[in-house]
């Protein structure tokens, strides 16, 4: 079992709380709006963005169709340079593998850079249970860790914390007052984490991509924390989602042109790093051990399904920033790791639809997500497919299924259809006051029906 899902009904509950909080509403609107604006600004710098998107889609799908071969080639390359590859079928396997690597390194302190895969498998809890101290080094993740919460946005984990809240969290570590002034907060974080970089025994990073031709993993950050973790600790463990392989460096270049642009609106982030193995001979830094932990956790079985395109996702967050539902509900409603349209699809697919039955409905199906996806995943189409599965697998409540069956029966008979339009006209004053009509009309207007039906006009 992964740590991805939430009980049914919680989406509505959490989202309601968020809707009632005007400060949070302003934050979600502000941040997603700015990220969207930045993305649009760099997008124009590309010569032919549509061609690039199509090429990216083609690269992703071709690789996913042939994952075994690419994984084998990647493994061979990594091992030829003295690295190790561990393929883990489940979240539990992946946790066990990383804990075992850290144990054999006799690690006391594990430093991490941002990795959604790590959140997905619940790694921190497992390392802590094994007696190790775990510290997140991405500023947003560090704040979230100190606050004891979960990331609310895959690109901006601490989207909801204000500078004053961050100052209070830093004060607990500092044991002294911290000013909420922005540059001061940056300096305090730098100081608190510098010690972590220097003394960590194991560095755990994610992997934005892995290149099978060369056995490289690729990491992008703006802060430089991932780079430090691939250089200073004795052991480097990179967590790689099984589907993030790319055949060649040339194809990696295509995806890198899209990733940072879609995420933060930069042509490239400040740091793009390729790691091709442990420290080379004569090198004065770099780890003695380099491990890549490849996480399947439900991914491989999606390849044969009509959801296979979801495996193309490069975790840029562009769909989240344009989603009218996310912009109101925030990330927590979707669960602790993935949110927005990509989360509403990925979480049910990875955990089972019955564990996240409300997520396919967390969408207006406006299609903005599909429009911005840099790898052309038909996101809102997949949400619709998931809704179909909810009905076919009888996860949708029996009453709702019955209601739709009756509706469909009635409207496939002209006499009952006519009767229903007559009743609708007569009943439209009553509808907002009783039953489901009342719940609907509480927050929006029911569209008025014409006094005379079109068919009655002569």
């Amino acid at each position, binding site marked *: 079992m992964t740590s991805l899902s939430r009980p049914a009904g919680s989406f509505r509950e959490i989202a309601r709380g968020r809707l009632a909080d005007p400060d949070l509403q302003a934050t979600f609107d502000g941040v997603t709006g700015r990220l969207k604006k930045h993305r649009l600004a760099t997008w124009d710098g590309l010569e032919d963005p549509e061609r690039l998107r199509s090429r990216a889609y083609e690269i992703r799908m071709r690789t996913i169709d042939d994952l075994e071969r690419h994984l084998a080639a990647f493994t061979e390359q990594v091992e030829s340079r003295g690295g190790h590859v561990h393929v883990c079928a489940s979240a539990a396997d992946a946790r066990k593998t990383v804990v075992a690597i850290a144990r054999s390194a006799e690690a006391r302190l594990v430093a991490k850079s941002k990795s959604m895969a790590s959140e997905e498998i619940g790694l921190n809890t497992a390392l802590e249970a094994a007696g190790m101290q775990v510290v997140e080094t991405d500023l947003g993740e560090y704040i979230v860790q100190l606050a004891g919460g979960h990331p609310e946005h895959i690109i901006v984990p601490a989207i909801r914390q204000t500078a004053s809240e961050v100052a209070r969290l830093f004060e607990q570590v500092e044991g002294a007052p911290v000013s909420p002034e922005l540059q001061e907060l*940056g300096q305090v974080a730098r100081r608190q*984490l510098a010690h972590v970089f220097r003394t960590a025994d194991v560095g755990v990073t994610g992997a934005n991509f892995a290149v099978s031709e060369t056995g490289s993993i690729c990491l992008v950050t703006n802060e430089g924390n991932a780079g430090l973790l691939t250089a200073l600790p004795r052991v480097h463990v990179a967590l790689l989602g099984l589907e993030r392989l790319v055949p060649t460096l040339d194809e*990696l270049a295509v995806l890198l042109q899209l990733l940072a642009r879609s995420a933060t609106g930069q042509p490239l982030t400040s*740091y*793009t790093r390729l790691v091709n193995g442990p420290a080379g001979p004569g*090198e004065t830094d770099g780890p003695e051990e380099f491990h890549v932990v490849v996480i399947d956790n439900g991914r491989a079985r999606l390849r044969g399904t009509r959801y296979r395109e979801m495996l193309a996702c490069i975790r840029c967050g562009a769909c989240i920033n344009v989603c009218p539902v996310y912009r109101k509900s925030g990330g927590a409603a979707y669960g602790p790791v993935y949110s927005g349209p990509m989360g509403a699809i990925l979480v049910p697919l990875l955990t089972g639809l019955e564990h996240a039955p409300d997520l396919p409905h967390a969408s207006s199906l406006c299609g903005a997500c599909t429009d911005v996806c840099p790898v052309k995943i038909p996101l809102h189409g997949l949400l619709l497919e998931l809704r179909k599965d909810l009905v076919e697998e009888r996860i949708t409540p029996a009453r709702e299924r019955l209601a739709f069956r009756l509706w469909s029966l009635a409207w496939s008979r002209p006499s009952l259809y006519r009767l229903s339009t007559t009743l609708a006209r007569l009943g439209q004053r009553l509808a907002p006051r009783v039953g489901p009509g009342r719940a609907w009309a509480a927050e929006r207007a029911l569209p008025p029906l014409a006094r005379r039906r079109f068919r009655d006009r002569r």
Partner: protein
Amino acid sequence: MSREELLERFVRNAEKAQFRVHRGEPPAIEGAGVSVALHGLADTGSVVLAASPNEPRARHLLGDVHVSLLAESRILPDLATLFASLERPLPSSLSIVTGPSRSADIEQRLIVGLHGPAEVHIVLLPA
């Protein structure tokens, strides 16, 4: 693209990425880390640093100020040309640096110099 155009494009984009670009003479900055860049990328204004016994992986991330020395003749158009020109086997690690360390994780406001340097220089060495 001619060599002059490539150079001019590199300088423009490096400055956009908040590098300070110098021609020929390295600035005198006490305590600055200095790296020799393998390549520059004109499209993004990036410097490419390859790990080797003389170039530790973390050098460009330590300290508040970092200087990269880049021969003008080593400037390439973009990522794709860089990846095509890399000799095999690849260095143990390769870093493509496009500006200072930064974060917008608090209220989406920019902090410069988080874990890495806040001030980054490129010194262009004529061919």
